[in-house]
């Protein structure tokens, strides 16, 4: 088990919002300039804290969408209609605002080149966010490790990072839509799709699975049933909240 690369007290800091980009109707990418950023590993997250005028505070965690070498720290946030923090981040926050955050956090659901591969990244919905950080990092360092992305979204309009998905070896599957002129897959990520896209278990691919609990459970169980070692499968799950 590798040790965390960064070990120091994680202080709250105010990061200036540089840019807010709409990825989809419900999802925005927020580019930030934290004044004191120690660097991060692809796959880590930050804690965000909001404070109301009466001092009431709310905290949530968000995955980092940018690669360690990118110019800005980017969070991609999906609006949950009954959420407390995500509607603020996606609807209210704008360039010039300050956002309080601390991080980076987490050291297991990360990829760096010394971990090798091949790597299979399996994302469901906004679970693709930390995987995108890994892919951007992989490309930025011109890694020779083989990498594939399997990305499940409800509809074509729900796809994040559409402009850059073509840069990676990507298999997209849509679960709620079968559009005309669609040359990707449809249906859930199942055993058949995984046996096509994951390398044979004998190649010991390192697999990262991120998404809602049901998605992660199904994908991880299918991979184990195909013969992949449980200790080669790293998961990150989002609760329904």
């Amino acid at each position: 088990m590798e040790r965390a690369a960064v070990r120091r007290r994680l202080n709250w800091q105010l990061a200036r919002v540089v840019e807010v980009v709409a990825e989809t109707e419900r999802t925005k990418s927020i580019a930030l300039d934290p004044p004191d950023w120690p660097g991060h590993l692809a796959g880590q997250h930050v804690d965000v804290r909001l404070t109301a005028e009466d001092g009431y505070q709310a905290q949530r965690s968000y995955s980092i969408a940018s690669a360690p070498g990118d110019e800005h720290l980017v969070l991609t946030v999906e609006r949950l209609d009954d959420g407390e923090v995500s509607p603020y981040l996606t609807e209210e926050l704008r360039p010039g605002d300050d956002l309080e955050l601390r991080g980076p956090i987490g050291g297991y659901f990360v990829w760096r080149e010394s971990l090798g591969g091949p790597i299979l990244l399996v994302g469901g919905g906004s679970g693709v966010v930390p995987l995108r950080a890994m892919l951007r990092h992989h490309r930025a360092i011109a890694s020779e490790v083989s990498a594939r992305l399997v990305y499940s979204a409800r509809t074509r309009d729900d796809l994040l990072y559409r402009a850059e998905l073509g840069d990676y070896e990507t298999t997209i599957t849509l679960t709620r839509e079968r559009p005309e002129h669609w040359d990707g897959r449809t249906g859930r990520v199942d055993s058949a799709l995984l046996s096509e896209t994951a390398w044979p278990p004998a190649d010991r691919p390192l697999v990262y699975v991120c998404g809602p609990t049901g998605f992660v459970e199904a994908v991880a169980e299918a991979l184990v049933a195909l013969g992949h070692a449980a200790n080669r499968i790293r998961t990150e799950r989002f609760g329904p909240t």
Partner: protein
Amino acid sequence: MTPISRGFHGRRSETTEAERVPPGQYVTRDFPVLSAGPTPHNPIESWSFEIRGEIDEPRSWTWEQFIALPSERITVDIHCVTKWSKLDTSWTGVSLDTLLDGVDTSAEYVLAFSDGGYTTNLPLEDVSDGKGWVAYEFQGEPLDPEHGGPARLLVPHLYFWKSAKWVRGIELRQDDLPGFWENYGYHNYGDPWKEQRYAGD
């Protein structure tokens, strides 16, 4: 002085709940799942719970022996480091006091270990005197594998990663060996009321 987030109003808990919710947490009615890897599914016949380490005679129970031990019904609030808290959760399990009854040990720490290789460390006193259980039922039903079944540690006064899922035993230790998340920058002790989420908090 904490800066105000322009335009943020927030959604407060009811006041009766608010005093039960540690700083930085919010109340959820759901039961989110967080684990670092696949959910293990092993036959119950191969399950055992072990106490080893600084103990003259290591102890071990099979599943049948374990569920025949005196059990307790526990209703507690639980707090996950990822910010959710869940109030009034009810569990059935065996107290660590029962499992450690009569054990004479010089150990001051325990390292809980689980199927799948997960570990977490705690001071022995934090699982003693009615503060720690090995739970196998949730809300009166067998504990779901996603939530740590067949059995998980239950130490509700610390962040919930200390309540190791799929627990298979504890090692009694004289020294404090950081466990899985404790090695990845999470706090070594994890008191939610002091908001000890990460190393240095």
